[in-house]
């Protein structure tokens, strides 16, 4: 263990009380927000990623821009946690605005991996996964734009679920790339993650992108039944995979590290032994998924982050010069390098003369990924791959080459492009840390991936 002295915990500007045990640097702000007296999560504790708004408790997004930002309202998911009886124990470290795969782009310094000291916890929800792995909270909330729940779940040896786009409200989530991201649960086991999903799933009149088919005024427009009311996700964690058809996405296995493939194959054997059938599938579209993901995410980020002008909130650019000059100065000082990189590349991809080449083609690539998944689910109940192509990187190892860091997201981004649900479950240990297995389901098929994931415990 990297048994750091508390005083030496990484990062300036954290609001962590002396004596609070946070050796791994999972938290940015420690503050307890008590929930209702009882409820399905009564007596339990939840750590919340610091891009999810908490009324009266600062919400930094891991950015110097928002180091002093205190939201005047709660995210819908935070209200739901408290109504369910959970106590929020603090806000967790993350890559700045969710832009990273290691939690190292945080303006408040890195987080160590409790399951593999000296290595990154994954990202961008690295603090949330580390808090669960270290036992500092019973559950955690993260957000997943291109793998930001599943990657840290895999690296920290815990369970993480990226819900179907539209299952969970994004109201109060500070936007990075709206068309891709969902809030989702992290927990030590599949049943725990499912219990938390039961609490946060459902329509929200404050988020028009949630599925609204149980809202009375919209009932006639829909004929389906909303999964959040017809399913109890925790009940699906029964380990029953007898007859389940598992498609292995060969394109996402071939590029993986040998030690990862070994653990993955061994987990597939466990599924076979429990009665599942396993076959191979190929999704040719994943070849351009990373490119499509980054073009779309950066483009959306360049628009979303335009709100940080240092006037209504955030770090001020002062009053020297005109609006544009102070605006540009606030953003130079408030944003870290990865955020600047993505805003600039997104601005470039949307600018006159390049929009068709990058943004439009990325949308075509996204449609291709969706079509490939649809076809694969004609013959498979779930699709499996390693969550990450490698075990956790050493702290500091991947920062210098952004493109290499983007490539690490190859197995997780296709799911966001296709708006599908996916779970990462632990699939064993290597001498470099834990390995995760990813199971992808059809849209609103959370019960199936929870059932399949629970068979691996």
């Amino acid at each position, binding site marked *: 263990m990297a048994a750091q002295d508390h005083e030496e915990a990484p990062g300036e500007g954290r609001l962590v009380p002396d004596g609070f045990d946070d050796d791994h640097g999972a938290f940015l702000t420690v503050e307890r927000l008590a929930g209702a007296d009882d409820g399905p999560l009564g007596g339990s504790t939840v750590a919340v990623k610091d891009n999810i708004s908490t009324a009266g408790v600062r919400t930094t997004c891991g950015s110097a821009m928002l180091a002093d930002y205190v939201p005047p309202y709660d995210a819908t998911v935070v209200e739901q946690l408290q109504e369910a009886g959970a106590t929020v124990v603090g806000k967790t470290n993350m890559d700045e605005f969710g832009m990273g795969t290691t939690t190292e782009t945080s303006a408040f310094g890195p987080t160590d991996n409790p399951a593999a000291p000296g290595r990154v916890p994954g990202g961008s929800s690295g603090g949330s996964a580390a808090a669960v792995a270290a036992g500092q909270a019973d559950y955690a909330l993260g957000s997943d734009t291109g793998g930001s729940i599943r990657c840290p779940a895999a690296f920290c040896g815990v369970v993480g679920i990226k819900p179907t786009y539209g299952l969970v409200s994004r109201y109060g989530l500070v936007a990075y790339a709206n068309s891709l991201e969902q809030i989702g649960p992290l927990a030590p086991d599949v049943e725990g993650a499912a219990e938390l999903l039961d609490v946060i799933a459902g329509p929200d009149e404050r988020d028009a992108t949630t599925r609204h088919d149980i809202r009375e005024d919209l009932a006639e427009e829909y004929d389906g039944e909303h999964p959040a009311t017809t399913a109890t996700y925790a009940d699906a964690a029964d380990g029953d995979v007898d007859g389940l058809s598992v498609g292995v996405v060969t394109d996402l296995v071939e590029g993986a590290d040998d030690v990862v493939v070994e653990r993955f194959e061994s987990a597939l054997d466990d599924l076979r032994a429990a009665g599942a059938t396993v076959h191979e599938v190929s999704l040719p579209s994943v*070849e351009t998924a990373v490119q499509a993901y980054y073009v779309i995410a950066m483009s959306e980020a360049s628009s979303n982050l335009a709100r940080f002008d240092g006037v209504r909130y955030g770090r001020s650019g002062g009053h020297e010069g005109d609006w544009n000059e102070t605006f540009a100065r606030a953003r130079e000082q408030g944003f870290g390098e990865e955020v600047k990189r993505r805003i600039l590349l997104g601005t470039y991809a949307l600018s006159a003369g390049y929009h068709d080449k990058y943004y439009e083609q990325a949308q075509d690539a996204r449609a291709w990924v969706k079509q490939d998944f649809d076809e694969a689910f004609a013959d498979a109940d779930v699709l499996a791959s390693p969550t990450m192509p490698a075990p956790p990187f050493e702290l500091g190892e991947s920062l210098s080459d952004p493109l290499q860091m983007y490539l690490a997201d190859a197995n997780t981004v296709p799911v966001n492009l296709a708006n599908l649900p996916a779970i990462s479950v632990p699939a064993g240990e290597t001498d470099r840390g834990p390995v995760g297995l990813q199971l992808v389901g059809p849209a609103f098929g959370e019960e199936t991936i929870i059932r399949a994931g629970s068979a691996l415990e």
Partner: protein
Amino acid sequence: MSDTDAVDPEEVRHVAGLARVDLDEAEVERFAEQFGDILTYFDALDDVPAVDQEADLANVFRADEVHEGLTQEEALRNAPETEDGRFKGPRVG
């Protein structure tokens, strides 16, 4: 990747201007180099086949009713500077 793939630093400055983000010279140089690699990597999108996109979407409206919103005090609480109940910003142009 070789230096020949690097983006012209002037182009980085131009985009930074559009995005309203000041950069120092070291950042401009680093980004020019990295953007060359990243944009070359994005070129693979040129080979994506055309796919029919059927959006399964329905508009969601809410009733046009008055709800409680933030108070003026709450809305201003995070502003670096305010004056007479308003945000205070730099001069425009």
